[in-house]
């Protein structure tokens, strides 16, 4: 369909020339996550304590705040792509699928914004006093 008839093209059922974008973006963010989330896991293991002062003092350092913000963008981009595939595989009703993907975008972008703002606030305030 799509290539042959006019209505097929109007409905966008043919090649949109962007079929590989989702796939390749998932791989790019996956490689980013290998570095960034591994960094977070090792850092959490090496932190001497996980109380308010230790965590804020740690997050306030530029070389922690910047990778953390990169990680937030990368993680929420990657999880948005991954959850979208899951929704597309299991939610078959078109309307419900549309609504679920909107909800997913709200979740991913909303959580990313809250997380980025939190790190920025800690970093610019200079950590716990």
């Amino acid at each position: 369909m799509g290539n042959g008839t006019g209505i097929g093209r109007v409905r966008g059922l043919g090649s949109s020339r962007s079929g590989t974008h989702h796939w390749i973006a998932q791989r790019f963010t996956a490689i980013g996550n290998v570095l960034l989330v591994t960094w977070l896991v090792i850092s959490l293991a090496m932190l001497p304590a996980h109380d308010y002062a230790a965590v804020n003092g740690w997050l306030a350092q530029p070389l922690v705040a910047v990778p953390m913000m990169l990680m937030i963008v990368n993680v929420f981009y990657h999880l948005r792509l991954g959850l979208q595939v899951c929704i597309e595989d299991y939610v078959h009703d078109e309307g419900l699928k549309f609504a679920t993907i909107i909800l997913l975008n709200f979740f991913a972008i909303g959580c990313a914004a809250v997380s980025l703002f939190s790190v920025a606030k800690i970093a610019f305030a200079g950590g716990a006093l």
Partner: protein
Amino acid sequence: MAQSGQRPLSPHLSIWRWGPHMLLSILHRVTGDGMAILGGLGLTWWLYAAASGPASYANFQYYVWEAEAGDGLGLVVNILCRIILVGLTWAFFQHLLSGLRHLVMDMGAGYELQANKRWSKTIIAVAALTTIAFWCWIILGRAG
């Protein structure tokens, strides 16, 4: 017919046998989606609590790790959160390793039956061992 009667005549959806690669594929999705929802919410809650001041962070720590002995609900939440935390670290190692396997397979390597089976089993074992090692380090190693 010379063939044995038990052999399938052609591939069919209902004729298959469990292999480690199937378990790995399912675990990749389960750990990925689990981290996406619980890890995404947990990361956001942690950072938001840290940015909102000592009281907010103390509340986060109270429910995730250490509620008072008399607080029944708090202790139940503690147990759930601790299971989720350990689960998230296991999910991270499992998803990391099977994700790296996916990247190798994207290059067209690792499809030979024996190699594929061996790597699938190795990944499940290594993810479990690194999770145990991680928590041994958190609970025992750092204290000493």
